[in-house]
């Protein structure tokens, strides 16, 4: 029923998990497995560790799971397979036992009440097998078909292709409720709500959209865990064909032949940098990452202002905790006290360790609330001026030709309720001029009156991502000032109506703007 390669890989993982305790040194196992449903090969011991820490935290922290495969025919659910996983440790699948299909029945309507099915299954298994389960996972036959299709030659596809495919798979399965789990974990709820919010926007397109803004990078991460350290290699290269190539690899220090010394993080990072030949190496704490992801799953949907503010604060707090919660090699010059002192002398307080994590979100969200309102509709247009290089800005349909994507974001009580993709042709039909007022006029009839129209160019977004996110701590002001200049250029960033904060960005000189905003971005009491 299931794809052979998928099954073989899964059984190999189960077999390793079963025998792991009797292996002399599981860290040094030479064989590799694939992360299920992906082309990424990994040491089975690392995968074991992932399951061990992630499954109990985000899915279920109790033992024993039953997988049920059903097929709905004539409004009746036919059970095609029952697989019992006895897990000594939550999430560690060690054995799989196929149970008779006729052990119990699931009526068509029952699928709406997973708690009832769970109770029924629980009592049958107690009676028949004398075992208690903690969770049931129901796969509809269509889900298995989709998984099979996804798994075809998956080991041969690139990471980029895989990410597109897995996102499509997840979206199709969740949209049609082809996979159900009880008790429903927060993580699952997060995925379902996220897909609902995207409102028919394909997750894979969303990923492609994000991917376009990422510059080339060559980075590695050392994730410090309580029991185990992990090394991750992350690379993005742009090929001659202008397509991008992503790399994601997981290593244990032993695999790379590195002996990590707990007391000298910087030396460890330098060794990893040398070994993997990466530009930067970051050291992150496993517990911090898990805590952030956990908060993200719990708080993100619906995306209320308060939750978003909290997550933003948390991310900024993490960022300011350089050398306490995270570290990096090479050490950015910006953290050098003498350099900071010299910058301070010319009037700029640029201590990134004093980033005002508590005040920045407040300021941003309060201004958004005031100008856009608590209920608002924002028409966001992402343009690509590079596509229209030959077309003059004053020419008719310039906006239409440069428009890459258009979204309508609908907020209610400062909570993002809906994202709609707006058809470019529909938006720009009947518009002959390039003025934003004409777009507003046209969109009033088609989509209701938007509170604001924002046009952001792809080049500006790429520049922000590159200079303020990827090169956040690089001591080079010219690229950062260039990005600020782009932000002030109407071609790259326009807003309609022109709210005072936009006018301030547009009309203030970059240095004055920095001097005005830095006291809010960075806390005082420097030395």
């Amino acid at each position, binding site marked *: 029923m299931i794809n052979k390669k998928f099954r073989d890989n899964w059984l190999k993982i189960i077999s390793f998990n079963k025998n792991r305790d009797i292996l002399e040194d599981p860290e040094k196992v030479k064989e590799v497995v694939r992360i299920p449903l992906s082309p990424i090969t990994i040491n089975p011991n690392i995968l074991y560790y992932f399951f061990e820490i992630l499954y109990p935290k985000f899915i279920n922290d109790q033992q024993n799971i039953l997988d049920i495969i059903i097929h709905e025919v004539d409004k009746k659910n036919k059970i095609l397979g029952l697989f019992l996983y006895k897990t000594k440790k939550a999430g560690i699948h060690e054995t799989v036992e196929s149970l008779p299909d006729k052990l119990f029945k699931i009526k068509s309507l029952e699928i709406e009440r997973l708690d009832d099915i769970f109770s029924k299954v629980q009592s049958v298994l107690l009676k028949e097998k004398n075992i208690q389960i903690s969770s049931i996972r129901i796969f509809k036959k269509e889900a298995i078909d989709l998984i099979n299709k996804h798994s075809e030659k998956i080991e041969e596809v690139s990471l980029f292709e895989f990410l597109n495919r897995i996102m499509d798979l997840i979206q199709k399965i969740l949209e049609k409720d082809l996979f159900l789990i009880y008790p429903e974990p927060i993580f699952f709820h997060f995925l379902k709500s996220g897909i609902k919010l995207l409102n028919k926007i394909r997750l894979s397109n969303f990923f492609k959209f994000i991917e376009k803004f990422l510059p080339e990078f060559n980075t590695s991460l050392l994730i410090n865990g309580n029991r185990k350290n992990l090394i991750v290699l992350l690379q993005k290269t742009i090929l001659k064909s202008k397509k991008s190539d992503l790399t994601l690899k997981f290593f244990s220090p032993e695999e790379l032949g590195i002996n990590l010394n707990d007391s000298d993080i910087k030396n460890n990072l330098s060794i990893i940098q040398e070994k993997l030949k990466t530009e930067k190496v970051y050291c992150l704490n496993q517990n911090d990452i898990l805590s952030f992801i956990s908060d993200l799953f719990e708080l993100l949907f619906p995306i209320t202002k308060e939750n978003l503010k909290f997550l933003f604060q948390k991310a900024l707090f993490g960022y300011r905790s350089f050398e306490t919660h995270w570290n990096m090699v090479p050490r950015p010059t910006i953290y050098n006290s003498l350099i900071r002192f010299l910058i301070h002398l010319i009037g700029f307080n640029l201590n990134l360790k004093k980033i005002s994590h508590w005040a920045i979100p407040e300021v941003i969200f309060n201004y958004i609330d005031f100008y856009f309102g608590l*209920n608002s509709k924002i028409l966001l247009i992402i343009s690509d001026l590079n596509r229209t290089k030959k077309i003059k800005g004053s020419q008719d349909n310039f906006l239409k030709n440069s428009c890459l994507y258009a979204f309508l974001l609908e907020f209610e009580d400062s909570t993002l309720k809906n994202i709609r993709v707006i058809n470019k042709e529909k938006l720009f039909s009947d518009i002959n001029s390039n003025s934003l*007022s004409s777009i507003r006029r046209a969109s009033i009839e088609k989509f209701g009156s938007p509170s604001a129209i924002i046009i952001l160019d792809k080049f500006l977004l790429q520049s922000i991502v590159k200079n303020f996110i990827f090169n956040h701590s690089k001591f080079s002001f010219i690229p950062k000032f260039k990005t600020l200049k782009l932000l002030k250029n109407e071609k790259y960033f326009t807003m309609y109506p022109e709210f005072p904060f936009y006018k301030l960005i547009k009309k203030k000189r970059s240095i004055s703007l920095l001097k005005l905003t830095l006291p809010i971005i960075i806390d005082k009491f420097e030395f």
Partner: protein
Amino acid sequence: MLVQSKSKKLEVAISKANTPKESLLKGIEILGGISKFIDEGDQVFIKFNLNLPGGFPTNTNFDVLEELIKSCKEGGASKISLGSFPVKGIPIKVLSDILNLKDYFKTIGAELAFLDNSNYYDNKDLSIEQLKKIKRDSFTNVKINENDYPIPNIILNSNKFISVNQINANPLFKFNLSLLNSYSIIPAKYRKIGKTQYNTIEYNSADQYKNDLISDILNIFTVKRPNLVINDMFYLLEGAGPFIYKDSKIKKTNLMILGEDAISVDLITLKILNLEIDDCELLQQAQSKNFSVPKISNIKVLGENIEENSMNVKLCFSKIEDIKLKNIFTYPGKYCSGCFKQAYHLINFMKTYMVKDLTYNSTNSFLIGESPIEPEKMGNVILFGDCAINSTKNYKFRKLIIESRKNLIAEAKNKLFKKPKAKKKPKIKEKPNKNILELPGCPPDIFNCLELIMKYYGKKNVPNLNLLTKMNEFWVNGKLADELKNWEAL
């Protein structure tokens, strides 16, 4: 001058739907359709909420206005104008330019009325005499109860007057009722309540400010009673209002209350919000001033049921001392509603937009009203309003008592030669306390207060306010605002 509606029955519609547009249309339909209110060729004036250059619900929901304009056109209206006077110091043109209102309303087939003529007074081709003429021609002074009120002619001359009122929490009247919406058909300058003829203590005890304010509101209301009143509570602002503050929350009720009689519509609105006439001084005074305030039982409620839709909502704080603010300790005296209203806005503004500034400046005592409590902690003392400034002239905090420094050399000599300690008392010096910020006015003006706060603390200590001031230079302190003052002085 008074335009009476076609029907005199006190009918109020409660409509409920999935969107504000649907709710409005349903409400009009329940009342008998738009043709009941609009005749062929009518010139319609729509009074909506236009307060600040911000979004909903500080200003009316534009979706509702759009649908109403459409309905009026269907009803045969020949011209539809919309307008309102914003808060003090902001010309309509500034708001229109920031929010692009002129263009927007033109697109949907109506016209934004520049009631303050701010579309003229930056025109350099016009002489002062011409401006005076424009002003003369655009306003009519209406005398009511011996008070003169300048009312824009466009409102007085309109055949039909519609009030679209967004229901937001209000610190003085619990909610912004339609009576309050009508009040802003006169310029903000003329809405100022003064205290010249009263004794301060009596003024505060009797809350004369509120009495005068209510009298003014009711007087203005009689100038032009609306033909159709729409209390839009589809999205209601609760917690802190009527502008958007940190504690403001939107409550979705899906309801709209409509009718021909503003007082009946307001009464039903209050009833849905579980408030009685006794909870609303505005309606109480209307009753005592012989306005026809009907009993709820005498109002015919159409559409939805009151009981099934009634709800409790979070009101604004009714005492200044209840609003908790980081590093600011409030010491109240006896204050009037004028000071309360302005202090409420100032404190909520600080809480929302000056988070970092409040953290940077620890220990501030905020004194308000007549004879406030002496502050326990020193630090910065903020005196809000003339009453607090004048009644604390002899307070302890006004002077700092400094003991003179000990003569350490003499003490050392005494110890060395074992001389008995001198029983001289240390010298005590009194110095005027310079850490006092006076925010004068009766009641003080918010923009003026913010300027004084900035000057007192210095821009390095109030980075949020500094940014805000720079940003506001694009509207509040713009050239047009100065020209507004000159225009008003004409």
